[in-house]
């Protein structure tokens, strides 16, 4: 991305670490995550379940459950550090400049309030408008996300809607105040395949039309390939690899990314794009290993990998990878390092 050198990024996260303090000990859910996001850009975050994708975003929004705390790092959004904002300042931002869509539309809407009310209350919270104006805006939003007979459906309750329709309502709520950043945490995982496509197409279209930046969290590499500009691959609470979507998919610079991609025969194939599990299981975040978190499952693991955590190596234009194989003295592995780092 060439623009990144000119204007300051919209969001710049650096060295973010978040832990949960539970009765069993400190769960290190996010460990030193850094990334940047420009206005109007779509950043995909992939990784296995428990890799810290959601917690990273929740930390930005200040929405961690009470046992969770950001212990380190900063997240500058339009020049302000989200981490140091107090609850009042954050709540001014939430739903206004930064909005979020969640995974399960069946449970993320309040069952005892009409969908209209749930949109309207968001508008009234952030805009100085009358109830009638807010209602008109809600109808406009329903039309924007293509909910048929918008005015009538405002009075419906969530249970009268299908999953896809509910997710449209969630999107309408998220877009209510023209956010600059939309965080979509697995927005299609809980939906049927055909509905998934519609919702994604809608998101992408709205993003193009409204020009906001999007962080799209997903398990589905196919979704990332179709939608995102850049990808962040997470594992064990850390960024394992980062890069523009095309190059990263064409030539992964990290054994973990390669493992993820290897399981998919063809990205343009219509069959499931889900991650097929790599043998073994993710590290226990109560006691993360001191070396590379992927080492127990990595086909290229070396003595060094267990000894120390690899740094994030520069791995080509706009690319970073956290793997010892990128050390200049490391053995070359075809497909990961051979072409990228000339000996």
């Amino acid at each position, binding site marked *: 991305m060439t623009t990144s050198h000119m204007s300051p990024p919209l969001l710049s996260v650096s060295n973010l670490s978040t832990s949960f303090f539970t009765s069993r000990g400190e769960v290190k859910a996010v460990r030193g995550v850094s990334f940047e996001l420009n206005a109007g850009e779509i950043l995909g975050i992939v990784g296995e379940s428990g890799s810290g994708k959601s917690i990273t975003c929740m930390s930005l929004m200040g*929405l961690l459950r009470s046992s969770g705390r950001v212990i380190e790092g900063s997240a500058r959004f339009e020049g302000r550090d989200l981490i140091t904002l107090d609850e009042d300042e954050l709540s001014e*931002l939430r*739903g206004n400049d930064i909005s979020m869509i969640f995974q399960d539309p069946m*449970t993320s*809407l*309040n069952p005892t309030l009409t969908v209209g009310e749930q949109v309207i209350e968001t508008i009234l*919270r952030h805009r100085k408008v009358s109830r009638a104006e807010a209602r008109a805006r809600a109808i406009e939003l329903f039309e924007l996300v293509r909910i048929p007979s918008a005015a009538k459906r405002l009075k419906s309750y969530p249970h009268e809607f299908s999953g896809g329709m509910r997710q449209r309502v969630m999107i309408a709520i998220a877009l209510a105040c023209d956010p600059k950043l939309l965080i979509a945490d697995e927005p299609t995982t809980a939906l049927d395949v055909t509905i998934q496509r519609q919702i994604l197409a809608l998101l992408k279209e709205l993003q193009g039309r409204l020009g906001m930046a999007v962080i799209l969290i997903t398990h589905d590499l196919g979704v990332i390939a179709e939608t995102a500009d850049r990808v962040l691959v997470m594992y064990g609470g850390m960024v394992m690899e980062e890069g523009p979507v095309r190059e990263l998919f064409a030539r992964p610079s990290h054994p973990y990314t390669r493992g993820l991609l290897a399981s998919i025969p063809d990205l343009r194939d219509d069959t499931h794009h889900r991650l097929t599990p790599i043998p073994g299981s993710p590290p226990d975040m109560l006691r993360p290993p001191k070396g590379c978190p992927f080492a127990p499952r990595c086909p290229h693991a070396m003595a060094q990998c267990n000894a120390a955590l690899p740094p994030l190596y520069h791995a080509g234009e706009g690319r970073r990878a956290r793997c010892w194989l990128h050390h200049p003295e490391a053995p070359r592995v075809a497909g990961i390092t051979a072409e990228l780092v000339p000996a």
Partner: protein
Amino acid sequence: MTAYVVQRLLLMLVTLFAIITLTFFLMHAVPGGPFTSEKMLQPEIQAALNAKYHLDDPLWLQYLNYLRGVLSLDLGPSFKYAGMSVNEIIAEGLPVTMKTGALALLCVVALGVPLGIVAALNRNRWPDTLVMVIATIGVAVPSYVIATVALYVFALRLGWVPTFGLDDWRGYFLPVFALSGFWISFIARLARSSLLETLQQDYMMTAKAKGLKRGTVLFKHGLRNSLIPVVTVLGPVVANLLTGSFVIEQIFALPGIGRHFVLSITNRDYTAIMGITIFYAAVLMVMIFIVDMLYLVLDPRIKYRADAK
């Protein structure tokens, strides 16, 4: 909506009918009961019963007779007190039972729910621990134990309140406390766990993510939903406040319906037992119906489900 109301109304009527029937035949099964023409103690009563229910008629006719009586809100003559009707017995005790019962219900809602909320919002901190300890004692110690201990301590030893009767306003304290103690604790526990569960719901996260103020999130989104389970148990609460009044009115010597009921049991005043049982059941059915309607207002899903059937 109408489907739901009709369904609830029907259930109420069927239940009431079942109760009247069951009560009638149970009482008929009593040897020397009111619906046998065996020799009774007082010829006067015998004559009154005979005139009303025609004790020589076949059983089903007597049953229809009784049913007709109940439907016209006439519960018949007392089996033990000549010249006294069951209606009169109930009317005599009603004010006392109503007053204590309503106060107890008020305490249950006005204390139980806020205590539960305070506990949930201070989860695992001292207010929570305090409420939970008290509530655990409240649900474990039987009401008559609470009542007698309270009677001994506050009335006999300290003399703060009278030992019996309601002539003095302070006389209400102990009966209402003993009557509602269990249910305050129960509702506090229920409200606490329900609110904690609601706070975990995804839509609470959505509400926060929309930037709503903390009060709005808690009261508009959290409280209302967490009160639904609390409302659903209010029907049974009323039922138990009524039955609880049997012992409480006995211990504090209150001239309420509960006391009359227990007296009728000891005196084997069968028609009074029947009549009071049916009266209780009717009061309850009405309360449960009201609660069902409240539920309808609180939870729009109910309406939808009932109509979909």
